[in-house]
Structures are given as structure tokens and as C-alpha cells.
């Protein structure tokens, strides 16, 4: 009997000119847990979305139980008994667990909710969940919501389960419970694919590990033959020499001190957990971590956009020598304190710039308040826009063309150019080279280095470990909202950072238990 549950052959997927997956081959057997491992942007989620009917592959074949299939929609995926548990839950908040479970299913017109609730409890008992089918989603914790998602696909009779970073939002205890459940499902003959970054989880749970790197399929190994070191190397690859210029810091003095800050989301999950560090003038502090580990909240907290539950953020004003507390201040108040803070957010067109406005109008975002007149002063911003277009070689038809029409690199030049133009003393940049080509990326590195030489304290949140190692002076590794460590960029290795990223204190605590 053929025991292959699902097989991918030569899958390739491009978004425009970006290759998300290239020639990926994958085989998952029944009664097996396969971990899909890879860094951010390595194409794991895109691959799984093709199996669950959200995207179509450009090339290649998908085989379910040995037969080639075309999966056009999530509905088709259900028919092939494929169930995906997304990282962002797809649940209707207003509905109860049972209602969410039967959502979208065919069947008799009238349904008896109590019978469905009974069936949900049956599944629940079979695999050891603990769930109240009558409970509304909006009253549930994250882990309960995830349970509902899993029951949903089981109820639909899924034999192939895909979980996209299921443990990212769970506490260590909840993670252990989930693993027990997954093991029970494996014993029940289900094929399970779990997307994750966390090496210790991979080793603990799975039978096989498939590794993707930048969209390329690297290979599959048996977990029994793998170690954290071997997997890290497969995942991050060999060190690539980038030849990024790194000037030595001159006379570093402390510019910003973050002490024990905490913040929670609406569900009470800690996004930042007792984070402390400091940034020096004339240095670049890199921040490394899996996406969504608290980087965004950290930068927004400093910029006055994120409310904190505790802790303190102290800014040393180089002009006056005064120490200013930034916590609980609005961006405007921070400005009025004389703090020259520049912030290049991750969401360039949704936050840093207004996509429908031209370069000139986008320059005014920071400066429009200047002066007493009730009218906008356009001369200064126009000059600035033209200067940035010229100096940074921004390719645009005109300074009035909406910036959303520019390419990613040019958008970033506009944003970074504006933020630098206000001669900041503290510059924060989140993923400033994401989606940029090599030349634009180097231009951005040069700009950051220039600021560093001017004595600006620079915070650089990045995802490419090679870049972090070559560009930064220090690297802060963050995981699950906690600081794993702050290391010296000149003496560290990719494997060390990869290890710190994927073995957070939280995670280690869990596996020690």
C-alpha cells in the first residue's frame, strides 16, 4: 500500500519578479510529523498556501494519495482532506466554537447545534482537547482559539494537517499540550506538517525535517540524525561575505536606555517581557529575531506609539545633557521635549508614508506643522524632495507622483531620506532593506553608516543575519518578547545568532520542564 499522504513535485511560485518557491519537492507519509524549517521569507507559508488552495503554483504538481490534483480554493482542499491552521486564526469572533466548526460545510439545511456540540466534544475527548463548544470566540484565549481551528479541520475529516507556526502565540505549557495532541493524531494515522522556526521543537516533535532557504528546497533529513547545529547550518547556510563597510564607533556614549519594559496585547499575551538594553551614540545596534517576536512593539514603544504596562525609556539629550523619560508620551510630546527621533517603520506605505501622496507631500508629514501660518509651506519640502530625489537617485516621473507607484527601493529611499533629513540623534529603522535589490540595499547601508559616523545612535532591525553581522556593532537577539542576549557583532557567528533566536528563554524553560 502506498503510504504517501501528500507529495509536491517541482513546485515553483513567483510573485512578479520575486521567486517565493523554486523547484520544491516534498513527501509526507501517513502517521508522520514533518517540520518545515526556514528563516523569515524562506517561502514556507507560500508553499503551504498552495497546498491549501490560496495560491496556484506556477509550475509543478501536487499529488494527494498518489493522484495528481488541482486545488483551486480552500473548499477543494477540504475535499482532498487537507486542513490548514493559519497563523492568524480564521474564526468568526461572534460565533461559538461549535458554530465555527460547522461553518461552510454542506449538509442538511437545518442543523442541530446541540448535536454538533456533542460531536465537537467527542473529537475533543478523542485527542485530549479541553474546550467548551458553546463558548464564544471573543471570550477565548489564543490557545483556545487554536484548539477550535484544529477541531475545525478534524471535524472536516482532514487527514493532512498543516500548522503554520502554531506555537508562536502559546505559553510553554500550552505548547506541550499541543504537542501531546499532535502525537496522538500521528498515532491515529494523520500526516502533519508543522511550520516552525524553533529548533528544539523540531527535534522534540517531528519525524522528519524539510528545510527551505530563500525559496529553495535544501533537503529533508530524519530528525533522529539531526542536531541543532546541523539544522541551523541548513537553515542559515554558509556565511556570505558582503563587504559592507563598518566604521569603528567614535566615542560611544549612552543615548537611550530602555529598562524593564513590558507590554501585553488585548488577549493578555506579553508582547514585550522585561526588555532592557541601551543604545550608544555612534553605534549601530542590530536587532535580530524571528518576525513577530516583539520588534515592532519595541520600536513603537520608543516612538511613543505603544502603551507600556511598566518600565521606563530614558533619553539622554546630547545638547542639554538632560535625561528625558519617553514612556507614556505621544509622538508630538516626544518631539516637543527636543528629542530628535527618526523612525523608519516596517510598514512603509501604511505608516511611514502616504501612498497616494507625492514625494513633496510625504516630506511634509514631518515638517508641515512648522511656522505660525495656517497654510502649508511648500517651498522647503519641495526643495527637500528634489534634493532627496537627486542625492539618493530616486527614480520617479516627478516629485508629485504618488509614491505607491514607485518601486520598493525608491519608496524606501524617500522614507529614509526624509527621516535622516531632520538630523536625528536617534534613528530607528525596521527592515529597511526588505524587498530591495542589492544596489539599493548597499545605498541604505551607506546611509546608516553615515549617520553612525555623525554620532547618531542607530537601531537596525533586520532579518538577514549576514547583514546584521557585517553592519552592526552590537546585536540584540529577541525571542518571544524577551531579550535572549546582546552580543558583539564582530565576534559572533550566524549559528550563534540562529541558536539564540530559535532557543528563547521561554522555549528553553519549556523544554527543561
Amino acid at each position, binding site marked *: 500500500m502506498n503510504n504517501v499522504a501528500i507529495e509536491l513535485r517541482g513546485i515553483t511560485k513567483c510573485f512578479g519578479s520575486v521567486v517565493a518557491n523554486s523547484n520544491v519537492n516534498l513527501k509526507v507519509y501517513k502517521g508522520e510529523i514533518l517540520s518545515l524549517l526556514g528563516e523569515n521569507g524562506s517561502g514556507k507559508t507560500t508553499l503551504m498556501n498552495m497546498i491549501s488552495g490560496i495560491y496556484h503554483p506556477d509550475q509543478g504538481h501536487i499529488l494527494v494519495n498518489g493522484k495528481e490534483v488541482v486545488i483551486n480554493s480552500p473548499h477543494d482542499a477540504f475535499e482532498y482532506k487537507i486542513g490548514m491552521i493559519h497563523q492568524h486564526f480564521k*474564526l468568526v469572533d461572534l460565533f461559538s466554537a461549535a458554530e465555527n466548526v460547522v461553518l461552510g460545510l454542506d449538509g442538511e439545511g437545518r442543523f442541530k447545534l446541540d448535536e454538533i456540540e456533542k460531536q465537537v466534544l467527542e473529537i475533543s475527548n478523542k485527542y485530549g482537547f479541553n474546550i467548551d463548544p458553546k463558548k464564544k470566540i471573543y471570550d477565548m484565549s489564543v490557545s483556545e482559539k487554536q484548539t477550535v481551528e484544529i477541531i475545525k479541520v478534524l471535524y472536516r475529516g482532514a487527514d493532512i494537517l498543516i500548522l503554520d507556526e502554531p506555537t508562536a502565540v502559546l505559553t510553554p505549557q500550552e505548547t506541550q499540550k499541543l504537542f501531546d495532541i499532535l502525537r496522538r493524531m500521528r498515532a491515529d494515522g494523520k500526516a502533519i506538517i508543522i511550520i516552525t522556526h524553533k529548533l528544539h521543537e523540531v527535534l522534540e516533535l517531528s519525524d522528519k525535517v524539510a528545510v527551505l532557504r530563500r525559496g529553495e528546497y535544501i533537503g529533508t533529513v530524519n530528525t533522529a540524525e539531526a542536531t541543532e547545529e546541523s539544522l541551523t547550518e541548513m537553515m542559515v547556510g554558509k556565511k556570505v561575505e558582503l563587504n559592507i563597510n563598518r566604521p569603528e564607533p567614535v566615542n560611544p556614549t549612552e543615548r537611550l536606555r530602555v529598562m524593564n519594559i513590558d507590554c501585553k496585547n488585548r488577549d493578555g499575551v506579553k508582547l514585550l517581557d522585561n526588555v532592557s538594553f541601551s543604545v550608544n551614540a555612534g553605534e549601530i545596534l542590530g536587532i535580530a529575531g524571528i518576525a513577530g517576536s516583539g520588534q515592532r512593539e519595541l520600536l513603537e514603544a520608543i516612538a511613543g506609539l505603544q502603551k507600556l504596562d511598566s518600565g521606563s525609556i530614558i533619553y539622554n539629550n546630547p545638547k542639554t545633557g538632560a535625561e528625558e523619560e519617553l514612556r507614556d508620551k505621544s509622538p508630538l510630546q516626544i518631539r516637543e521635549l527636543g528629542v530628535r527621533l527618526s523612525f523608519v517603520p516596517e510598514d512603509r506605505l501604511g505608516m511611514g508614508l502616504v501612498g497616494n501622496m507625492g514625494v513633496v507631500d510625504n516630506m511634509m508629514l514631518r515638517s508641515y506643522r512648522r511656522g505660525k501660518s495656517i497654510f502649508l509651506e511648500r517651498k522647503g519640502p519641495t526643495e527637500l524632495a528634489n534634493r532627496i530625489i537627486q542625492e539618493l537617485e530616486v527614480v520617479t516621473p516627478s516629485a508629485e507622483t504618488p509614491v505607491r507607484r514607485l518601486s520598493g527601493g525608491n519608496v524606501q529611499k524617500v522614507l529614509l531620506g526624509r527621516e535622516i533629513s531632520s538630523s536625528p540623534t536617534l534613528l530607528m529603522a525596521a527592515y529597511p532593506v526588505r524587498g530591495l535589490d542589492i544596489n539599493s540595499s548597499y545605498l541604505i547601508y551607506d546611509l546608516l553608516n553615515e549617520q553612525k559616523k555623525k554620532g547618531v545612535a542607530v537601531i537596525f532591525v533586520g532579518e538577514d543575519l549576514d547583514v546584521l553581522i557585517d553592519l552592526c556593532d552590537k546585536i540584540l537577539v529577541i525571542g518571544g518578547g524577551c531579550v535572549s542576549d546582546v552580543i558583539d557583532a564582530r565576534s559572533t557567528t550566524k549559528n550563534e545568532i540562529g541558536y539564540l533566536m530559535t532557543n528563547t528563554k521561554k522555549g528553553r524553560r519549556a523544554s527543561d520542564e
Partner: protein
Amino acid sequence: MFTLEYLMGFVATAIINGTPLLFGAVGEILTEKSGNLNLGIPGIMYIGGISGIIGGFLYEHACETAGITPIPILCIIVALLASLLGSTLIALVYSFLTITLKANQNVVGLALTTLGVGLGDFYGGSLLSFFGKDGSIYLEATSKAFKEKIPFLSDSLGLFGQTFFSFGFLVYVAVIIAVIVHFFLKKTRVGLNLRAVGENPATADAAGINVNLYKYLATCIGGAIAGLGGLYFVMDYSVGGWTNGGFGDRGWLAIAIVIFALWRPNTAILSSYIFGGLYVASSYIMGLSGSEKEIIKMLPYIVTIIVLVFVSARKKREHQPPASLGLSYFREER
């Protein structure tokens, strides 16, 4: 002064005035549950009314020409089908523009209301002239068929029977439809799916629900139901006649009831009668001056606003408008 007869008379009038509102409100609830805020409902109700008139008129005219007496049941069938056809077509236009072409729902709705009211008044004024006649429309046979009382119950149960079983059949149809829609939304799979579409179309999509199909069907069926409100108004309330602007602001009142009833069809039944009662209460309260009567007529809107504000302040999840109301859904396919 306030005898039982008087009170019952008021209740009956409240029900008569509430019935067009009930049709409109239930139709709009069904539509809004799919995430479509159809501000074209007043126009659709106009169209429902005038289409019924046109259908009825053509049938009566044909009978007249042929020299036969119109058959009551055929009167009803023809007017009903014409009404349903007209209002469904307009709702289909709304659906096509907002769902397929993703146009702004408010603008399309308002434009359809303008269009619907215009078409209604056009035909209301000109229908007779197409047949070389003067005067205003009066559909005697059709109206009589629509106003037929329930034979036995209306005169055997005394005052109670006179009050509650003397209406034309559409009054009961309105209640039945409201109950069916309530049952449909609460107890059926399709109803559950529809609510999911209005709450979170992306989730519904991921669950394999055809979001656009649901939106189309809910909007068109909702439009057809609302159109019946117009039909009831012209055939029963206005005794088969048409007055320009006679329908007034009832369409907007129906939208107000949707809010007042917190998007529940069963609550809409009583709410419609209360609003219908408020609409005429001023004539039933003795000793009010003309201006004071206008203040009473303002009450339905004031009450609706208070409910809207109160509900948004309390933030109880079950009482909110469908979460995706007013937004078009677009899943980018690559």
C-alpha cells in the same frame, strides 16, 4: 375616552402602518447580514410598489378590453410577481455594482433610491396616459383582492377577531417572513454561513463559502422582501392608488428599525408595529396641537439614534452591526 374599541383601533392602525416597515426592515436585515448596507431600500420599496401597480393595471386593463371580470387570485398573482420582479432587478443592479464592481455601497444605494423614487413617480403619474386615459390610477379589483379579510376568524372572534384577523393577507405574510428569516439566520447552515459572510468575509472564504454568491442572494432576496412592503402600501394601505411621494420616509424608517431591532428579524416585528404606532400616534392622542404632533412623529428617529449610541457605547458584541457592513470584499488572486 379611551375605550377598548378605541385602543384596538389604534393597535390595528399601528399594525397597518407597521407592515410596510416590517417588510422593508426584514429585507434590509437579510441584506445587511451579508455585509451590504443597502441605502437603496427606499427606492426598492418604491419600485416594489409601482411594479405591482403596473402588473395589476395591465391585468385589469386586459380584462376590461376583453370584457371579463378580473379573477381575484390572478390579480394577486400578477401584481405579486410583477412586484417581486421589479424589486429583485433593482437589488440585482445594486449587487452587481457593489459586489462585482466593488463600488461604494453608500453612493450606489443613494443613487438607486433617487432612481427608484423617480421611476415610481414617473409611472405613477404617466401609466394611464400610455393608454390614453386621464385621472389617477385606481385598481379596484386588485386592491379588493389584496384587502380580503380572513373569512371566518375576522367575524367570529368578536373585537379580537375584528382587530387581528381583518387585515389583508400581506400583513400575515410579513410576520411569517420575519419569523422564517429569523429561523433561517439562527437555525440553518446557510443562515450561519451568511452571518459569517457579514461578520468576516475572509474567514468565510477560507471556510469554503462562496462569499459573492451569498452576498448576491441575500441582497436580491432582501430586496424582493422589501419590495413587498411597497406592494402592501399601494394595494392595501392606499387601496390600489398612487400618490407621488405618498410613501414618504417609510423606507428610511425601515432602515431605522433594523438598528432599533438590533438586526433581529423577530424583534423587528414588534419594533415595526411600535414605529407604525408612533407614526400615527399623534392622531390618536387627544388634544395635541399640530406642532406637537410633529414632535411625536420625530420619536422613531430619536429613539433609533439613542439605541445606536447606547449600543456603540456598551460595546456588547452581539448587538453591533455586522462587522464588515459597508465594506466590499476582495480576495486578490495571483
